[in-house]
């Protein structure tokens, strides 16, 4: 089976505070620590598990500059066979339609049976990459998948719905599946994996060849703002036990939750 996984290199929000850049429309990236998008870790793990189970080869894709290659090396270290990175400066600050066009461009004429990606990214969080790529390729798509199993030319998946509900879907391959967190337990990178990754190829594609002309206007970000501080916010202080007790009391008081 030919498997592909798309990953994104995003600011590590656990380590650093995000700030809006001077243009007022994008996030400031300089100086921030970056890491692989959390959702993509689960997609990558699922891809490796499927490859181990049904056999085949796994290609990892990334739309990003050279610094983002770190996330591709992670893919190679945990089991991808090769990696492809596509970039062009024109993609800097691109909207999801443009990114999907770039993803489509990176896949090229290779026919993958199964393409996995994270359900969304932790920076902009559009959640559109997977479905738009499927649309561009003219293949099936299921989003927010929290359980999946490949059976022959089909894949059985469970889609996450509101309120803890799930929907079971049977999809014919080829398909793009967007993976929700929690579907598996992403493995740690091993030292041996890192050493093996060094010998695997990372192909770099020039994104200048991707036609973005019809995509740019589909979604234009006017401005980006941090959420305003809420009125009447109260900081609870004290030991964890005291804070928990106070929390409980407040929720009961507010009603409807407990």
């Amino acid at each position, binding site marked *: 089976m030919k498997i592909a996984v798309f990953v994104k290199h995003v600011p590590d929000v656990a380590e650093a505070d995000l700030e809006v850049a001077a243009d007022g429309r994008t996030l400031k990236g300089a100086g921030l620590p970056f890491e692989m998008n959390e959702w993509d870790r689960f997609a990558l793990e699922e891809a490796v598990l499927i490859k181990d189970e049904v056999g085949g080869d796994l290609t990892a894709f990334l739309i990003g500059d050279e610094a983002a*290659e*770190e996330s591709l090396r992670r893919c190679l*270290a945990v089991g991808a066979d090769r990696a492809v990175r596509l970039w062009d400066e024109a993609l800097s600050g691109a909207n999801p339609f443009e990114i999907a066009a770039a993803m489509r461009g990176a896949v090229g004429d290779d026919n993958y049976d199964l393409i996995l990606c994270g359900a969304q990214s932790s920076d902009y969080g559009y959640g559109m990459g997977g479905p738009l790529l499927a649309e561009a390729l003219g293949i099936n798509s299921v989003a927010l998948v929290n359980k999946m199993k490949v059976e022959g030319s089909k894949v059985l998946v469970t889609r996450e719905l509101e309120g803890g509900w799930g929907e079971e879907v049977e999809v014919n391959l080829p398909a793009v599946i967007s993976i929700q967190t929690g579907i598996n337990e992403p493995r740690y*990178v091993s*030292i041996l*994996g*890192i050493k093996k*990754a060094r010998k695997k190829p990372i192909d770099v594609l020039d994104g200048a060849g991707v036609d973005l002309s019809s995509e740019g206007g589909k979604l234009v970000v006017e401005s980006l703002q941090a959420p305003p501080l809420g009125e009447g916010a109260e*900081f609870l202080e004290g030991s964890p036990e005291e804070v928990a007790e106070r929390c409980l009391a407040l929720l009961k008081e507010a009603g409807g939750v407990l």
Partner: protein
Amino acid sequence: MSFNLTSEQIDIQKAAREFARGEFTKWAREADEKEYCPEVLYKQAAELGFQGIFFPEEYGGAGLGYLEFCLVIEEFWRVDPGIGQSLGSVVFGSDLLLTFGSEEQKKKYLPPITEGEAIMAAAITEADAGSDVTAVATRAVLDGDEWVINGTKMFITNGNLADYIILYCLTDPDNPSRHQRHSCIMVETDRPGFSANKIHGKMGIRASDTAELSLTDLRVPKENLIGERGEGFAQFMAFFNRTRLHIAAQGIGVAQGALDMATRHVKNRVQFGRPLAALQAVQFKIAEMATKVEASRSLLYRAASLADQGIFDHKLIAMAKWTAGETGVRVTDEALQLHGGYGYLAEYDIERFYRDAKIVELYEGTKEVEKQVIARVILGKA
């Protein structure tokens, strides 16, 4: 001279950070309280390839260098010094075996460590022989084809856990040079005459095992001698040039971990209507701490990268170890101070880091010994 880590080194650093953050944090407090390191962590660390990073591949290692090992130790200690020391010390003594052991000894003792099947240790210190290693009195006498060993050892890391221990023994008491009276002998701990007693109540790195050893008519084959007889002192001096790199990485790790906590705390803690981080006195403290950490790190990376080129600069390594120890102690102290009263409570990790840091100024040569080493290189034997 390049000061950039290679992409592979960055990947190793991140792998260690992720593993430590993902797993150590589940156990850190309990490990400190109950003075043990969970077996599952030893197993995971070996499976992920963290044991034997600097062993050549033919002995099951990763074939990398001291710098890579230091990066791992730093990340481990940054998350939890006690567990970091437990997992980092699994290979303790292997440097000596790699440098002076026979091919046969290396093939026998090194691969099980990388597979998570064995733990190693090295035992020098005795109740009356600490910084003065020439005073070691544990006696090894050759009786036919066997060494017969009698004596006691103190403060031995992994004493209760180790499968084999390199023992620093007095073999030639009559040699006119006190630097040629000792030898290193490998002792398997399942031999009759070996016993270990756990030392309880350490101030810090409590997850790490420490023991008192007692050796009574313990017999090992004469082939267990490492290198040449009477060369023990010289061997251990070379050994310290390697292990002090590991220890310096510990000091930097504990300091960085404390700095991380302090930074988070001062950004979140509001006093007088502003976060602590808005106060200049606090800003200066953070700046000083961060600078100390970076300065120590630069010294260590330089010493370690030279070591990986085969240059063991005795003076530079001692400087790196002393500075890192001091940085660990000072930065954890300042970080606790910034936490105010909260820092004095066990439920805040900084309390543990403060206790953990001190050991770096004590073991593998006290800071006074390090300074003596440095001065001797500069001034000669005045």
